[in-house]
């Protein structure tokens, strides 16, 4: 087996992603189930309305955050597997040449389910740490009878065991698809057609050519960078509104999740881009290109994706809260009016520009070194 448990540790991005998803989902679902159990105790219309709204919120939050994060986890998993196969194509090619079947090799990728499992279990435990305070805040106004926390084992199955098994299977299935290619191609490491363009007529400068080829080479990373900006934008803005609409704690939780997700995905994307272009950057430096030019050709292509992600995030969080306020909480009294918060949006944008450009600049600085020895030993 060539995929080891150590490789699954490298998928910490997936662990963090699933940890966030499970924390949120378990908080709300546990609350939902405990709430459902006391349906009979609701005796007046005001409480009933608030009760219904809370039931609805729990469902919406779970569907939106759980669905979003699960989808992103799948994309990330696919990315890791593809990346793993690309960067180990020679070893895999040798195994295939020796007569290993695709399934026998693909089977090893099931350890990637471990990263999902570890993320889920940490998220599950974390949610129980947060739960007492969460229950208290949900019912701060005492419209609903106090609810005791009970542990629902079915949630453990659905949020921890099932995802781990499902992702293991997805990993094996997807790697089967990716391994299904002639073993000569794997041995030679024949670069996939993507990322290449034979177009020679354009009179673009080398740096511009390099920039577009880097972009074409790893399209998934465009998604990651956009997603990172999306999380940053949507979650931070939402957390500001949440403070008024829900509670400080909700706002804080969303803020933390947003920041963690944004930085993890950005880190994964940027380190991957840099590592896979290390040799080209080194050669550029050897020839006398400045580190700023190297940064421009390798990293700057992703800037539009980042800012588009930011815009989508702003719109998304507005639409989501609008729906929550207008539909879910329709008729509930005491819900503050909700409007798009321009000052918060501008502050978030400013913070984003500083953080994003700052990180890119720092990575650009790291290109000052010329790790000749390193690329030569590869």
């Amino acid at each position: 087996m060539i995929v080891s448990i150590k490789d699954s540790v490298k998928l910490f991005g997936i662990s963090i992603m699933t940890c966030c998803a499970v924390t949120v989902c378990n908080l709300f679902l546990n609350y939902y189930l405990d709430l459902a159990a006391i349906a009979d105790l609701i005796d007046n219309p005001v409480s009933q309305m608030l009760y219904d709204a809370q039931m609805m919120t729990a469902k919406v939050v779970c569907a939106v955050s759980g669905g979003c994060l699960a989808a992103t986890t799948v994309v990330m998993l696919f990315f890791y597997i593809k990346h793993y196969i690309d960067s180990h194509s020679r070893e895999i090619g040798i195994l295939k040449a020796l007569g290993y079947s695709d399934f026998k090799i693909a089977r090893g990728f099931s350890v990637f389910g471990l990263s999902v499992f570890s993320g889920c279990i940490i998220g599950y435990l974390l949610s129980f740490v947060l739960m007492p305070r969460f229950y208290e805040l949900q019912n701060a106004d005492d419209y609903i009878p106090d609810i005791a926390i009970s542990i629902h084992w079915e949630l453990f199955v659905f949020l921890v065991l099932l995802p781990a098994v499902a992702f293991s299977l997805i990993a094996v299935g997807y790697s089967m698809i990716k391994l299904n290619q002639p073993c000569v191609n794997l041995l030679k490491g024949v670069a996939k057609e993507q990322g290449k363009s034979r177009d020679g007529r354009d009179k673009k400068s080398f740096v511009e050519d390099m920039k577009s080829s880097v972009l074409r080479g790893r399209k998934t990373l465009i998604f990651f960078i956009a997603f990172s900006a999306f999380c940053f934008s949507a979650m931070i803005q939402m957390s500001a509104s949440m403070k008024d609409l829900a509670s400080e704690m909700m706002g804080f939780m969303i803020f933390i999740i947003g920041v963690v997700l944004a930085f993890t995905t950005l880190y994964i994307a940027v380190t991957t881009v840099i590592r896979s272009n290390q040799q080209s950057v080194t050669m550029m430096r050897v020839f006398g290109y400045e580190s700023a030019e190297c940064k421009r050709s390798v990293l700057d292509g992703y800037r539009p994706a980042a800012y588009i992600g930011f815009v989508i995030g702003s719109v998304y969080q507005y639409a989501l809260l609008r729906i929550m306020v207008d539909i879910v909480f329709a008729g509930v009294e005491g819900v503050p009016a909700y409007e798009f918060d321009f000052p918060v949006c501008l502050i978030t944008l400013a913070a984003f520009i500083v953080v994003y450009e700052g990180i890119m600049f720092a990575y650009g600085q790291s290109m000052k070194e010329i790790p000749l020895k390193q690329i030569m030993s590869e």
Partner: protein
Amino acid sequence: MIEIKNLTKYYGRGESRFKALDDVSVRINDGEFVVILGASGSGKSTFLNVISGLEAMDGGSVAYDGQTLERMSEKELTKFRRENTAYIFQQYYLLPHLTVEKNVRMGADLAHNKDILPVLEAVGLAEKRRKFPAELSGGEQQRVAIARALAKNPRVLFLDEPTGALDEKTGRLVLDYMINLQAKQDFTMIMVTHNANIAQTADRIIKMNSGKIVGITENADKKTAYEIGW
């Protein structure tokens, strides 16, 4: 002219400190073709990397027409390399996702060299300019690396075992290209090799051993790439 004086270079620190270059002094003239000959581990690559401004030195001095490398900042070194040097390695290190033409553009852009066709023709690859590196043979890839370096119009061309990964036939072909181009364009060429036969093609041979220069010979009987043994 390149004036190298008392050059020293260490690797590692403390107990494991290792002297890779030990008090190396030599002078290389403009337009000269010099071969650095030595066994594996004798410090040839280190020497090349230090005098070309890729690696920092620990002592001594390297001066190009009076311009001293050891006093240059990182930015000045980059500018120096940009304006003066080009490099060819044993592993070609072409950019895999760019065509031959665009790989050559990488060097050409730095010299504001708009027309790369003459260089591609000089290495006999004009026909293959739309191909990707993976679609070329080893010898062709090395010729792309040569074109990329030449397109930069370097004053000094550094080569680290440029024929090391090639078979005899292609090796001779590539070497022949290099020698002819150097004679025609008159840049300084400094080539590292461990092959004493290949050294016979140079104007001067600098022998290295354990980080020291152990002999410099003028090569009166200069041979072509097709006259030497392999």
